[in-house]
């Protein structure tokens, strides 16, 4: 599903669904996942921004994310998109 509305100043926007049964979705160089870490392994996780654990005090890593996320739309655009804006999505 691709939005190619030429009236948009943002050009082509690629949209894909990230659902529970798909472990990973990649659009060009961007990766989208629903599951951060693993259920069976307590030490696997991700970071919301940067890895503070590489600093002098490893216990500063307070930006850890872990768990399962609900399905969402992965949106990729070469240009930045406005946040809190309303977008029309048409299916070809």
């Amino acid at each position: 599903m691709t939005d190619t509305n030429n009236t948009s100043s943002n050009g082509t926007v690629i949209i894909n669904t990230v659902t529970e049964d798909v472990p990973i979705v990649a659009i060009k160089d961007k990766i989208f996942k629903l599951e951060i870490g693993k259920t069976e392994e307590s030490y696997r996780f991700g970071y919301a921004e940067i890895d503070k654990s590489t600093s002098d005090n490893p216990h500063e890593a307070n930006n850890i994310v872990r768990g399962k996320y609900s399905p969402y739309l992965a949106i990729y655009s070469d240009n930045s998109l406005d946040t809190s804006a309303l977008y029309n999505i048409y299916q070809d």
Partner: protein
Amino acid sequence: MDSSEPFYAISNRYNFDGLSNDANGNKTLVCWRGDCYINIFTYRLNRNFNDPSLPNNDQIIQSDTWKDHYGADSTDWSNISRSDINAVQLGNWITFKVKSSINYALRSQDHSYVSEEALMGAPRSFYPRSGLMWRGENKMPDSYLYNDAYRANLGFKCYFA
């Protein structure tokens, strides 16, 4: 207008001169048919994992297990208590307005996951039907039964004006 039929705009208002031309040089505007609902919709963003041994547990025994054994270069990770990490109550919800062909106000609890419901003690549900649920027995996906039995799919037919 003489007509007594209800009418409403099916597109935004555009300047006629700004419309694009088709192959025959006619001004073209694509207008889609179907219902459009304006919904205030709340969606759960995340939840913690269901531990393989204790799927619905949210009681933490060793609250410092991560702090004591975590480290970027550590080989001590095996001492992190997995069940305690998976027991942390997590939940974020977002509420936003959406225009859609689906009426999200007509939503149902999902009883079709029988074994999961037997294990967790509740069917898949949603906000506001069951409140904001971050406890262990609510570590399962939201119900995605939207507009069940009411949704009318009119296909992809469109009108050209």
